[in-house]
């Protein structure tokens, strides 16, 4: 059973890895852009799932980190600093810091309060973003060029960029895999399962949850840095609450508390959007009920429909 699932997953990654080759052979480089964007959202979704699925922390403000990561690339670029070696670490650090501050306040609450307080912070950042004229306000800013890596890695090359994103996604999944099985991940998952018990056996859970929150925020920031490079554009609308909702939908659709579910969710959600919207302008009238059906009949998300997914992931 497990091997059937492993094969499916491997096949999935092979497909993702071969997209550029197929696109080149078929002379359809567009699919490079489409799947790159999908993978960027998959990175955001996987990072959200670390706290949402594994840690039980329902953050409704994940888009805030996406936005911060995007600003961390676009603002230096605006002042002429194009080095990815500055921008990307900055994106990780700033979004992580923001997550530290937001988490330190939010994690004192739980349940619906937690959902709403994370939303509140994201909305504050959104309104801040659209008010800062120097950095484009609502119009946003054009990224003059993609992040530079001293000529070693050239993101202007669509294939190189694709494999960079692919590499980041695979690395994130690998890191995630290590992390959820390491001491830290065990603490996070157990705290979701039974937090009073965790405290009773001696874990000060707050600091671990906060650390997970920061890691997830940094992951979101990285996705934001990639997204501005993808779009070559920064806009505060990356931080709008509907964007947080989209990412959350990808996670739930794909399967919470699994590593690969969010990837699946991002692929399904964005591909459906692309395909249905080419078919009819009323595509949302189809997508909406589809989501309802997934909730009603695929209880563990799309991941649960994979062969051999009966066994728990993690």
């Amino acid at each position: 059973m497990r091997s059937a699932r492993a094969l499916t997953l491997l096949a999935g990654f092979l497909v993702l890895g071969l997209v550029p080759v197929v696109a080149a052979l078929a002379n359809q480089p567009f699919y490079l852009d489409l799947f790159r964007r999908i993978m960027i959202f998959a990175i955001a979704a996987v990072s959200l799932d670390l706290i949402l699925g594994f840690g039980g922390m329902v953050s409704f403000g994940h888009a805030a980190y996406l936005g911060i990561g995007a600003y961390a690339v676009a603002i230096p670029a605006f002042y002429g600093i194009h080095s990815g070696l500055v921008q990307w670490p900055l994106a990780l650090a700033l979004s992580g810091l923001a997550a530290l501050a937001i988490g330190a306040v939010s994690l004192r609450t739980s349940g619906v309060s937690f959902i709403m307080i994370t939303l509140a912070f994201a909305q504050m950042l959104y309104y801040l973003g659209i008010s800062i004229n120097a950095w484009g306000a609502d119009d946003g800013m054009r990224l003059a060029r993609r992040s530079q890596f001293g000529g070693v890695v050239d993101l202007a090359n669509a294939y190189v960029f694709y494999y960079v994103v692919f590499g980041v996604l695979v690395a994130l999944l690998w890191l995630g895999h290590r992390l959820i099985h390491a001491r830290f991940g065990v603490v996070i998952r157990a705290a979701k399962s039974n937090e009073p018990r965790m405290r009773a056996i001696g874990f000060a859970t707050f600091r671990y949850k906060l650390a997970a929150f920061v890691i997830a925020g940094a992951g979101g920031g990285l996705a934001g840095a990639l997204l501005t490079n993808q779009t070559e554009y920064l806009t505060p609308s990356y931080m709008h609450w509907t964007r947080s909702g989209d990412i959350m939908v990808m996670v739930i659709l794909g399967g919470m508390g699994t590593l690969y579910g969010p990837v699946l969710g991002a692929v399904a959600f964005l591909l459906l959007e692309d395909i249905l919207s080419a078919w009819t302008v009323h595509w949302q009238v189809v997508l909406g009920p589809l989501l309802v059906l997934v909730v009603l009949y695929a209880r563990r998300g799309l991941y649960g429909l994979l062969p051999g997914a009966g066994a728990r992931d993690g």
Partner: protein
Amino acid sequence: MAEPLLAVRGLTKRFGGLVATDRVDLEVADGETLAVIGPNGAGKTTLIGQLSGDLVPDAGTIRFAGEDVTALPAPTRSQRGLARSFQITSIFPEFTALDNVALAVQAHAGHSFRFWTPARAERALREPARATLEQVGLGARAAVAAGTLAHGEQRQLEIAMALATRPRLLLLDEPVAGMGADESQRMVQLLRALRGHHTIVLVEHDMDVVFALADRISVMVYGRVIASGAPEAIRANAEVRRAYLGEEIPA
């Protein structure tokens, strides 16, 4: 006389108008087993909650091993050597029995900001956990998901998790609740084996269990300790019999 391991003074906790514990005083000497008995709603679980740090008392102090721990949160008290089991089974149902206990070991084996090595590969966690499982008689069930263990086994797992934190004081909240006679017997044997090695505060309904294990008994009614003493003295105490053991004395 040396300072008792646990000393509680004037512990008071209110929920709205209800006084759940009312100026409770308790002392537990090192190595002693104290049973707290009383009818439902007498405030026993509230007492345990305050001792373990899950509830903040409205008044009173708790001294443990010579230090005032009244203001310390639960995890810190656990680190100081206070372990509790829960009245309603509280485990990690998705994890295996061994994982459950290993987690308790992990809590007391340095910090857990380790992101790389699989916890299951850490022998320093697994081996003590396995030994503790053996100790409570669950060795053969190590790989079973805790949620699918039988009720009695889950209660044993509770004890194992408490033991795995290497506590100086065990707070046991109704360890035989919901057990059949045979399971109760096994649990009593397990707890009897812990006597002397561990200091125990035991909250229990089952008089057989209480009289089998306790060195001393405190009786709580309506949030107050109405009597404390050796088992025989308690058994003979008329007030206790009337208030708790349910014998009606003609008015």
